[in-house]
């Protein structure tokens, strides 16, 4: 009997292909939206979570300039220097310090050329960032002190310039500077904002200063705190030292900022979960609208098929059997819509993940849930029309033209 009803529903749906499609369009769009949004959302949450986990200890990032919103201040702010980094390294609560002097430069290796962010830094940068090498070695202390022409490549740069060949020992020209490739970083993927973290070249900071930048400014300083130190204590100590070094009077505001990377990532995942909540609300509304669409067409269908219902009742169908027939038709419709929506949603999520450079992580639970919800939509919104069909008076129904 159940199978008969499914078969009947299928025939009725196939008979009116265009109408059936339009009927379920609401559910298709609703489910596709949920699947796409949740899948992309989970991908980006996973990414933020991964970057939180990568930072083994608390990392503070210091930048010159006030931490405030709005246009940058007109008065010049003193830059950081390598001496600031050295002073920070003296603090007892600090594990490692890595100064960074950044710039974007053109890169040439053989016939291939590209451009990337070039960071002048120290070997400790890899420890602060908890970023292992895939190939080769880090800078030697001697190379750092001498400002040697050596560089470490991010995976994207390696792929672009050297393809699958071994880059170690090869020469890379960074603007005018020819340097030897001594290492390759492991792949890290997209950052919290979707930027490619692997599109980077590391060189010793002194090399950066002398050969590329032409001054001794340090753009930012990353400070890894000891595991035993909580970030609030760390921030206070770092602020006190820097205020002292920069001669900021008591009561005056800092002219530099200290960002706790963990807080920052937690904030990002907070934003992500708010987004997920909003998206779920949108999804619920679109499923509701889709359900009303199904109810509407099912009501029309019941009216159109009054005579058929009369015939079925006359030959001995009970009200319950007629109810089941129409309910199953509504469920088959909405589940069909759900299935199309899942396919469409996964395709959208796949495209979106590539575009936003987040991992594509389809979740079986979300798919099952979307499928379940579309079935529930069929039951809820199919019930009223089905009950109307079941309660028909067979005599009236047979008389209906």
């Amino acid at each position, binding site marked *: 009997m159940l199978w008969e009803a499914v078969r009947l529903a299928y025939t009725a749906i196939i008979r009116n292909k265009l109408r059936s499609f339009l009927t379920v369009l609401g559910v298709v769009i609703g489910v596709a939206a949920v699947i796409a949004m949740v899948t992309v959302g989970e991908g980006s949450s996973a990414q933020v979570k991964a970057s939180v986990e990568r930072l083994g200890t608390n990392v503070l990032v210091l930048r010159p300039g006030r931490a405030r919103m709005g246009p940058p201040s007109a008065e010049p702010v003193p830059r950081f220097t390598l001496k600031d980094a050295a002073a920070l390294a003296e603090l007892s609560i600090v594990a490692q310090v890595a100064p960074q002097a950044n710039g974007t430069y053109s890169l040439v290796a053989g016939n291939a050329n590209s451009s990337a962010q070039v960071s002048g830094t120290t070997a400790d940068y890899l420890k602060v960032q908890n970023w292992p090498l895939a190939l080769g070695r880090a800078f030697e202390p001697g190379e750092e002190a001498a400002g040697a022409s050596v560089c470490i490549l991010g995976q994207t740069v390696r792929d672009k310039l050297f393809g699958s060949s071994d880059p170690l020992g090869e020469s890379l020209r960074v603007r005018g500077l020819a340097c030897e490739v001594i290492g390759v970083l492991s792949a890290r993927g997209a950052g919290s904002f979707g930027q490619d973290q692997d599109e980077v070249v590391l060189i010793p900071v002194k090399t950066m200063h002398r050969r590329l930048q032409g001054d001794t400014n340090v753009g930012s300083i990353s400070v890894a705190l000891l595991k035993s130190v909580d970030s609030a204590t760390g921030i206070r100590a770092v602020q006190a030292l820097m205020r002292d070094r920069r001669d900021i009077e008591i009561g005056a505001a800092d002219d530099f900022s200290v960002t706790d990377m963990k807080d920052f990532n937690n904030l990002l995942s907070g934003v992500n979960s708010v987004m997920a909540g909003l998206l779920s609300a949108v999804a619920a509304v679109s499923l509701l609208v889709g359900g009303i669409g199904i109810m509407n067409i099912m009501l029309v269908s019941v009216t159109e098929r009054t005579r058929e219902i009369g015939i079925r009742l006359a*030959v001995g169908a009970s009200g319950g059997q007629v109810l089941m027939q129409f309910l199953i038709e509504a469920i088959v419709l909405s589940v069909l819509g759900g299935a199309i929506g899942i396919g469409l949603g996964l395709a959208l999520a796949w495209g979106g993940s590539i575009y936003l450079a987040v991992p594509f992580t389809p979740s079986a639970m979300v798919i099952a849930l979307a499928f379940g919800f579309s079935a529930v939509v069929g039951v809820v919104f199919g019930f009223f029309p089905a009950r109307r069909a079941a309660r028909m008076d067979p005599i009236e129904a047979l008389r209906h033209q």
Partner: protein
Amino acid sequence: MSAPAPSTPLIAFRDVARSYGAGEAEVKALAGVSFQIGAGEFVAIMGPSGSGKSTAMNIIGCLDRPSAGEYLFKGIPVQGLDQDRRALLRRHALGFVFQGFNLLPRQSALENVELPLIYKGLPADTRRALAREALRKVGLDGREGHDPSQLSGGQQQRVAIARALAGGPSVILADEPTGNLDSARSHEIMRLLQALNRDEGITIVMVTHEDPIAHYAKRLMVFTDGHLTRDEPVRERA
């Protein structure tokens, strides 16, 4: 062989009344009618429109219930049964043939005949076998796959009769079965019903307004203004 009423008649009306509406607008379609129909009878019901003959048919067919009086089908008081229990009676003991055929469009003849068997919960192969057998009895073997739209009126009515027959009913109720057919087709259908009554022992109750059609029956009941005004054996045709 006008069957003598057995101890428990198949159909028994006792002072059956049916009225629609209430108060001033109340219409009495049937005003206290009593009769019995035994197993194996072939009854023609006649009367002008509004005489109550359709109401009587609907009550016999368990599609409607009397508002007063008693209707016993095989001794079961139908007036006390709800929709679903009456559906059960229709499913297991009654077959309907309508003036407008009432076949499901876009379903093959075989599928149409299978319809009541689905509600009986029979497995697909049993249904198919019974439906084929019923189509054979009405002379439509070879047309199982045809759509109603591919069949003539007479053939469509045969499919409808096969549908009524397939479930092995005690009674076939035919409401103006020849009303949409030409004279030649009408007589073919009547000879078919007559044969089913004679050979299968199926009781047939038929509403008609054509005298020649009524002559195929063995008993004639005439309704006028909600009363049974004539009830007599049909004379052999000259």
